[in-house]
């Protein structure tokens, strides 16, 4: 592939070059300058500015895709290496977030080195590098080493890190925006602080796409030894404005759902008209669905491929190669193709569904026409009416170049624990010195001494108040007060478990022949011969019962069973999968986009830019109820089918809404309001109950302000956390990252299944006996921004205080229709335990009454039995347990419910 993404052709006006030549500080050596000229290129302003900063100060380069970021990062290194008389050891470390990107960058860097005839040795080191090569790299390091954050952590924990890095002059962080505000970024920044200690003269350079607040990244790149230390900022010129549009469908725009089925014909036509299209979707399930449906329409036999993180690596590589060699017409993909790797001549990006964040959209748009001077072309395809608003807000933001605000966060404590152990593996350390070093990393600049001590104690003996593990300590203090590892096994185990990415537990999906083998009576072992199709999240498979069908890799598969870490499946001759999907949008709506959506809703003047169907819908809402004002919370109450509904429109994202739903139903239950269930999406939350809550607000029997008061984040929250499956999953991740639980045990690989069971038990015991333990603190901090999104919920409740509008309506409002349509589609996992058990127990009673239930017994039938409206007079237990969580009792259950009838897919052509 011809890669000219670094550099653009010499523009008609070569002003940049002239300026470069006249400014002595920004001059390229002749050898380099002539190379540029020979290629017909001109160095860009930002490339020269970065060169001027090399060796002088840490720097952050912000440049859009296609602006030549990578070469800008390497130029100073290449020039310095060219000047130096004799080899000095490792000169530059280049850190890339993706293995594939590292390989790509290495390949592209070899081009200028070869063409200029530079004596520079570049090597890559990733998880795929052979052990022998890694050994050799330590002994005889290259000039430039291209690697990943995890490999850096491993190198730093080695006993020879001091000698390896002492010659280091520069560190370059690619795609810094994608790493910095995460646990991976925390570990990387701690690594940087250690590198500085080993090689005090080094400078760090960050390469980043446009971000809203560069100051954060500037601080990240610099040692926080004095207040306001921050890297110099270089901003490249913006490229051509993107050519962005929202699909103005001729079809009826759906009220709810994420399938975008209505627009598939139009998407197909757009693909046909373009050279190579990337179709971005938000979830794997959506990707599967769109892929399948496109093939159903594919009368022209266009080469359309599928790419998502669950597919087998070999299969993904095949798709990438086919893209690069222009053998494809379109690729349906998830965020796996979001980041920098550039595989082909993409000229159109279609984003199906809402982009969820302004920055994410900008990143995806950048995939089209990877050249700065040409506008990227992108079409947004909203899947429902709310998504139209969100797409509108995102397009406006992109046109203004506006970005999401990264949430301010402090470094994760579980990552800190892992790092401390790594540093002990590198060699004995003095606690005070290590504390100072850690505080020089921006995420940990405000770390308290007691937090550091807690982390140190955790690493040593688990950090419990009950000091019973002292004699088993992993790290011990020697006579001189320094900490060292107790034995070699500790270091070995650290190396096996390094890293902060805890993948969802994945099961291999293995296709066994013989979908015809249906017999429920067959009880022998499942056959394990057949090829592996890819990997799937364990929690999705956990939701299925054997013989359930689902979509994977573009096919409808039937689950036969789970054997160890494999889901055994066979091809199903089904028209439609029984389990349609497992989540709506994976990413919650960003705070910034949410704010813009609220603004669009509130400003009628902006509706002109919306499709007629949507403007009409909003107008109807305005007349029937009210539009949610930009700075107030709209609450509607209305009766429907013998139930009372309460709809809120906070626009704070699905995660925060789900948490609020959990807490509200809990609180309503305690107040005797008989809540029956709730449903949440990115925009709204709807709770229904047997009591007319609206009337209570009207008569003043209950105040809305009390109902939504912030104190629910106190006891209600604590009580819910006790049993929340989401919280347990969060805790599990912290337990793994911190090293409490080892992902990989020396001899045998402990599967995720075993780990999970034990972390739930650990969580229960720890919460009860030592609620202040560092791991619970870490999990709480994760929950604030992670799966529970407590931070946004807290903001929402604070904003709502005294600023709520209540509309008591005689019937459902237009705005509430989409959320009501989602009832029964999404289950809230894990929270309805006893209800499920009670259902099953009830089935027993039913079975006794009619002991001749036909067909194969399975709970699918059972839950249908249990789905009749509860009869409170005769079934007290059922009524009680049919209370708040999950789906409503009057709704067809997930299993009983057929997916939309129109999905009569015949499978993709092969």
């Amino acid at each position, binding site marked *: 592939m011809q890669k000219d993404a670094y550099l653009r052709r010499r523009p008609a006006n070569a002003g940049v070059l002239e300026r470069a030549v006249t400014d002595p500080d920004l001059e390229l050596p002749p050898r380099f300058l002539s190379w540029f000229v020979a290629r017909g290129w001109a160095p860009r302003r930002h490339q020269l500015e970065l060169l001027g900063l090399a060796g002088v100060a840490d720097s952050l380069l912000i440049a859009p895709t296609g602006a030549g970021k990578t070469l800008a990062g390497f130029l100073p290194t290449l020039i310095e290496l060219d000047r130096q008389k004799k080899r000095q050891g490792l000169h530059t470390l280049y850190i890339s977030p993706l293995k594939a990107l590292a390989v790509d960058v290495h390949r592209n860097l070899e081009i200028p080195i070869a063409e200029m005839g530079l004596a520079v040795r570049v090597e890559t080191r990733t998880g795929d590098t052979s052990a022998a090569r890694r050994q050799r790299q330590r002994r005889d390091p290259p000039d430039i080493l291209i690697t990943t954050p995890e490999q850096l952590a491993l190198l730093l924990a080695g006993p020879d890190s001091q000698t390896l890095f002492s010659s280091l002059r520069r560190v370059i962080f690619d795609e810094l925006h994608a790493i910095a505000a995460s646990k991976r970024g925390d570990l990387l920044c701690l690594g940087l602080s250690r590198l500085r200690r080993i090689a005090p003269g080094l400078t760090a350079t960050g390469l980043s796409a446009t971000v809203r607040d560069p100051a954060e990244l500037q601080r990240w790149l610099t040692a926080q030894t004095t207040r306001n230390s921050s890297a110099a900022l270089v901003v490249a010129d913006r490229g051509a404005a993107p050519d962005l549009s929202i699909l103005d469908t001729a079809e009826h725009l759906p009220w709810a759902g994420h399938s975008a089925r209505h627009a598939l014909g139009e998407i197909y036509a757009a693909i046909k008209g373009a050279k190579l299209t990337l179709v971005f979707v938000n979830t794997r399930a959506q990707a599967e669905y769109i892929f399948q449906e496109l093939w159903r329409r594919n009368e022209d036999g266009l080469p359309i491929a599928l790419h998502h993180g669950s597919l087998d690596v070999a299969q993904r590589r095949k798709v990438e190669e086919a893209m690069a060699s222009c053998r494809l017409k379109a690729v349906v993909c998830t965020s796996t193709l979001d980041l920098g790797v550039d595989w082909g001549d993409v000229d159109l990006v279609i984003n199906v569904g809402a982009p969820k964040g302004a920055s994410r959209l900008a990143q995806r748009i950048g995939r089209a026409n990877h050249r700065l001077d040409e506008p990227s072309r992108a079409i947004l395809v909203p899947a429902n009416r709310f998504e139209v608003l969100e797409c509108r807000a995102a397009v406006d933001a992109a046109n203004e170049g506006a970005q999401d605000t990264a949430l301010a966060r402090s470094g994760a404590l579980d990552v800190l624990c892992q790092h401390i152990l790594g540093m002990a593996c590198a060699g004995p350390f003095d606690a005070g010195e290590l504390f100072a070093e850690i505080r020089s990393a921006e995420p940990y600049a405000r770390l308290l001494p007691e937090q550091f001590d807690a982390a140190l104690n955790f690493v040593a003996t688990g950090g419990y108040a009950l000091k019973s593990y002292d004699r088993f300590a992993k790290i011990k203090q020697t006579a001189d007060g320094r900490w060292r590892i107790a034995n070699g096994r500790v270091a070995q185990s650290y190396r096996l478990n390094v890293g902060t990415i805890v993948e969802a537990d994945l099961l291999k999906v293995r296709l066994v022949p013989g979908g015809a083998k249906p017999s429920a009576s067959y009880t022998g072992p499942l056959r394990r011969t057949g090829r592996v199709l890819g990997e799937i999240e364990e929690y999705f498979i956990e939701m299925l*019962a054997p013989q359930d069908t689902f979509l994977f890799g573009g096919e409808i598969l039937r689950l036969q069973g789970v054997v160890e870490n494999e889901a055994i499946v066979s091809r199903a001759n089904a028209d439609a999968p029984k389990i349609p999907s497992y989540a709506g949008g994976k990413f919650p709506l960003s705070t910034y986009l949410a704010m813009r959506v609220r603004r669009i809703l509130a400003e009628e003047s902006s509706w002109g830019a919306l499709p007629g169907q949507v403007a009409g819908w909003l107008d109807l809402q305005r007349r029937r109820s009210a539009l949610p004002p930009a700075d107030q919370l709209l609450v509607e109450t209305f009766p429907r089918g013998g139930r009372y509904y309460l709809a809120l429109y906070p626009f704070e994202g699905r995660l925060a809404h789900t948490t609020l739903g959990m807490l509200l139903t809990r609180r309503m239950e305690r107040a005797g309001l008989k809540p029956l269930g709730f449903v949440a999406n990115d925009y709204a939350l709807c709770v229904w109950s047997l009591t007319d809550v609206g009337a209570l607000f009207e008569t003043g029997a209950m105040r809305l302000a009390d109902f939504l008061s912030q104190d629910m984040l106190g006891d209600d929250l604590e009580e819910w956390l006790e049993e929340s499956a989401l919280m347990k999953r969060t805790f599990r991740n912290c337990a793994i990252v911190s090293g409490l639980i080892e992902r990989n045990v020396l001899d045998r690989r402990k599967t995720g299944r075993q780990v999970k069971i034990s972390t739930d038990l650990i969580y229960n015991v720890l919460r009860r006996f030592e609620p202040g333990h560092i791991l619970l603190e870490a999990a709480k901090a994760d929950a604030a921004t992670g799966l529970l999104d407590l931070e946004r919920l807290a903001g929402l409740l604070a904003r709502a205080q005294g600023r709520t509008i209540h509309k008591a309506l005689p019937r459902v409002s237009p705005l509430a229709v989409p959320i009501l349509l989602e009832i029964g589609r999404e289950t809230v996992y894990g929270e309805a335990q006893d209800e499920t058990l009670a259902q099953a127990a009830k089935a027993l009673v039913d079975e006794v009454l009619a002991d001749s239930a036909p067909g194969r017994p399975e709970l699918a039938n059972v839950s249908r039995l249990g789905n009749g409206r509860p009869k409170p007079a005769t079934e007290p237990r059922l009524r009680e347990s049919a209370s708040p969580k999950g789906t409503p009792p009057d709704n067809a259950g997930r299993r009983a419910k057929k997916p939309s009838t129109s999905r009569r897919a015949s499978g993709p052509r092969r």
Partner: protein
Amino acid sequence: MRDAARKSPQRAAALPVLDAEFLADPSGALFWPSENLLVVADLHLEKGSAFAVRGVFLPPYDTAATLAALGNLIGLYQPRRVVALGDSFHDGGAGERLDSGDRRTLATLQRGRDWIWIAGNHDPAPPAGLAGEARGELAIGSILFRHEPSAARGRGEIAGHLHPAAKLSGRGGSVRGRSFVSDGSRCVLPAFGAFAGGLNVRDAAFDALFDGEAGKPVLAHVIGRSAVYAVPHRLCLPD
């Protein structure tokens, strides 16, 4: 079931084995009212510290948690006799690692009642210096208490060892919980220990024990938040 539930604030459920009317308590224990006898299986005391020896620092509170739960039960039922069905201690070193506070708690629980340590594969003998009587098995009438269920002598057998857990699926997704398994002729108890995991009741290990010869349906008595739910074994899902 509902009648039995009324007798106990914890909503224990009837679980008859042959002619013995047991109550299945939602904490995972069996109570035998007519004998005033409480049965718990697989306490696995000091499992946390057993891991700590290998450098995995699980919270050192599992013994305290397990004993606290046991204390609640003893307070509730005031049994004259307690039978611990084996694997009461996680390993041979458990007695040495047992914290003095936990040791005292255990002694308090044992005071004033008979206490029987049935031998398990993890603890062929209880740690030295503890009260209670160590036995291989215990027979009372037609009921036989032992650690590991035997395929051959099933009638009237109350055992542990297998840590049964059942997985069920319904509208709210699937749920996995500790479970008793019984066919009215024998019963396997769930593990009581705070750190004890579970084995799916659909595992082959249960097939040999519950082959339908008892003539009655095999039920999983699944433990919920505060109640025990009886579910046909065949409706339970494999993992």
